[in-house]
């Protein structure tokens, strides 16, 4: 099977002027309370925010519509120059601790980054965010060796200016929503299996709709142990490198929107995965299946909330831009009271969406998967020392040791069931509510703009095509709400623990 070709990108155009952005604390006033305790963190977050703002203003915003048009004709087009710029801004390594060479940004900063990028192009945010999802899966395995392997690959490549993507391969033709929920895994017709062979496993199966499938340097693959009984505890997690023999990406899907982030079919035909690329999920996978997946979803659904907030904001800004330069029935639009109220409502929804996802994110930081990452100390000079080649070897062998594994798993075990349910329920609410608000804003922005709204050059029609996906992936909104019932209303219903 042939893998698809990636085309080159022409040079990017000059930046264009944009509407004034909100300042850091205007956008996130709720964080002021937390940052009082840690002003240094506040300053670091704000500095990062400014850098991302600059990236968006100069390198992303001026090209979004052109890139979308190119992708309409050629679904394999990749905006390489933009992605190289993202390396300069360290957007690939932002979440890794400085001690492994990453930018050492707080998880909250990473989410703000996704939101801000999504407020210009949610497809680009997804391109970066999907790697975050894959990373979350690896994190949830609490296997320090796998985590440091992925971190090193991304950090080293970023330094060389090579954008590095990860993909998460879960969905299969017969396993969509079912594979988005640990309790439903028993229904999922997950056919990808891994057969134990000397020195590793052989993977066989077919994954569909895989974001970044065509770009990923590493695929994070969920598969059943072929010798197991296809129970959730028989799930294994693999890191499969691009170019592995038997791995192919036969096609990119033609999607309605978010075209810049390709979704592909990924096929594994007897792909050998050496032992060092198998995440040690421990306890025969049961921790990963029941606790890990729920935690991943708590984190990543809050992430979709951040994307959606970006789109909600973008819809507001796009409408505002249009209103400023157009008339309605012979009068400047911006001078009409009802138009201002429409705009105010667009801005209001963006604010509600932001508050919703930030609360889910804070829950994830306090009690969820992001908690261990936020505990990594900022060691200043020691960080520099730890990234020096000689010391890095010692550091890596320490991370590889079973002591580190035990430590990581102890951190994981501190979470109670109730905390996990709360974090996941907040993730569900963030994803569903923010994506609904985003959809509402996109629909209303276009309605306000009239026939100008459906023309590509004005930006709103792209938003409507893009936003719909936010209600589908990471489990459809309906399935997210069924999960919410299970997590938040268990005492209200009998049998609330199942989606059926």
């Amino acid at each position, binding site marked *: 099977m042939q893998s698809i070709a990636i085309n080159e990108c022409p040079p990017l155009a000059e930046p264009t002027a944009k509407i004034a952005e909100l300042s850091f604390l205007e956008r996130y006033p709720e964080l002021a309370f937390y940052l009082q305790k840690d002003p240094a963190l506040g300053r670091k977050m704000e500095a990062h925010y400014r850098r991302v703002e600059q990236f968006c203003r100069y390198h992303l915003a001026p090209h979004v519509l052109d890139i979308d*048009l190119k992708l309409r004709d050629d679904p394999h087009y990749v905006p390489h120059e933009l992605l190289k710029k993202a390396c300069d801004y360290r957007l690939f390594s932002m979440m890794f601790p400085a001690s492994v060479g990453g930018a050492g940004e707080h998880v909250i900063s990473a989410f703000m980054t996704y939101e801000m990028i999504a407020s210009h192009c949610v497809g680009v945010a997804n391109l970066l965010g999907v790697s975050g999802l894959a990373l979350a899966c690896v994190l949830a395995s609490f296997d320090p060796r796998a985590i440091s392997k992925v971190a090193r690959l991304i950090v080293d490549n970023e330094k060389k200016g090579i954008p590095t993507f990860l993909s998460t391969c879960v969905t299969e033709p*017969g396993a*969509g929503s*079912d594979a988005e929920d640990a309790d439903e895994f028993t229904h999922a017709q997950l056919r990808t299996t891994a057969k134990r062979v000397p020195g590793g496993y052989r993977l066989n199966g077919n994954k569909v709709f895989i974001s970044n499938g065509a770009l990923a340097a590493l695929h994070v693959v969920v598969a059943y142990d072929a010798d197991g009984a296809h129970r959730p505890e028989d799930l294994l997690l693999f890191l499969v490198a691009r170019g592995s023999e038997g791995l192919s990406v036969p096609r990119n899907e033609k999607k309605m929107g978010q075209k810049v982030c390709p979704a592909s079919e990924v096929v594994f035909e007897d792909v050998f995965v050496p032992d060092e690329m198998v995440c040690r999920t421990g306890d025969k996978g049961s921790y990963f299946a029941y606790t890990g997946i729920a935690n991943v979803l708590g984190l990543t659904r809050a992430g979709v909330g951040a994307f959606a907030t970006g789109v909600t904001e973008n819809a507001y800004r796009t409408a505002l831009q249009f209103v400023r330069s157009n*008339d309605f029935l012979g009068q400047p639009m911006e001078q009409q009271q009802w138009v201002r109220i429409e705009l105010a409502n667009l801005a209001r929804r963006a604010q509600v969406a932001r508050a919703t996802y930030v609360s889910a994110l804070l829950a994830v930081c306090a009690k969820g998967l992001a908690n261990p990452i936020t505990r990594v100390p900022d060691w200043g000079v020691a960080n520099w020392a730890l990234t020096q080649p000689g010391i890095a070897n010692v550091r890596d062998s320490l991370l590889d040791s079973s002591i580190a594994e035990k430590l990581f798993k102890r951190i994981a075990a501190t979470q109670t069931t109730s905390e996990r349910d709360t974090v996941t329920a907040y993730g569900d609410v963030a994803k569903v509510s923010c994506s609904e608000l985003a959809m509402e804003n996109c629909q209303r922005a276009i*309605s306000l703009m009239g*026939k100008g709204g459906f023309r590509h050059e004005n930006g709103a029609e792209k938003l409507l095509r893009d936003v*719909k996906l936010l209600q589908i992936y990471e489990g459809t909104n309906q399935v997210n709400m069924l999960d919410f019932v299970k997590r938040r209303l268990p005492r209200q219903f009998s049998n609330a623990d199942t989606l059926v």
Partner: protein
Amino acid sequence: MDIETLTLLGDSVRSWCEDNASLLGKMEHKQPSNELLNQLYGTFNSLGILSILGEQETHHEIEALAEVATQLAYHSPSIAVMVVQQNMAAWLFTEAGKSAPEGWISLPVYDAASEWRFQINHRYNQGQLSLDGRWSSLPLLNVATHALLPIAAKEGRDFQLILLPLTQNERGLSVSAPAVTLGLRACPTADLQFAQYDVKQEHILLSGEKARACTELLWSHAETCMMAIRAGIAKASYRTARDYAAQRYQGGKIIIEHSLIRKMLADFYRETCAMDESWRMMAQGLQSDQPLRHGQVGVALKSGDLLPWLTSDGIQILGGVGYMEDYIQERRFRDAKQCEFLLGHPHARTLNLWHHESE
């Protein structure tokens, strides 16, 4: 038109669409060439569906055209829009006592009567009508032989309906490249740019109070057809969702067996039935010399508001598959949103409706 003829017409359009389903699908994905659009003109002309509105525009004829439109929209809403606008043009020629030229005619179907006077600047220089500015988003402009534009009354001058030939290189008149649009992509739109363009006497198809009244009346009656188009899209989206739900297996059963999906489908079906019935009732209640009643306009505007949400559910029931271009569901969502603006900006029309009431 009696019920048998109406049924026959509907059936023949449906079977033509079914026979040409793959062509229609391709056209909706990639903007069709002018050659293909011209071929379609020939085909539809010979099927007799481009001039259904006869000399006396009666409710039977509007009903027949709406029936054709809903059948076409089920397969290709763009083509339905093209056919309706061509019929509107043909009827205006009949009113003017002139025969319509061959080929597609472009009409501002994205503008309400209340918006016409704001589209371009027009002024009179010693009796000479001169146009400036840009009339945006005119359907089929790049393939049409003529554009038919309503020019509002001004400076003591009458309303005029002008017919501009687009084939020659007219000084002061230019056509933009086709716009890239959200939906209805098989019916491309473009902008007509005027730079001190002098309208010649022979370009005036109709003028005066009669011209204004009949043009506005036609726009009002065409609403029934646009509603029928929306109903066709809703029906297509609903059926695709229902059929998919009947064979997709998730959560331990066929998804149509999950009560959540049943409820979504039931709501969808209810709205689809209501939309379909509304245009039929509207067509039957039309009075050929009266514009739509306020309630009818209200229903039409509601259908425009509702359809994008219905077709969004249409995607949702399919999950990820619904987002892919291979399944027509995503196209219906895009088309539905663009159909919100058929016959004008919904806010402009709402204000206009209320304006008449408050007077």
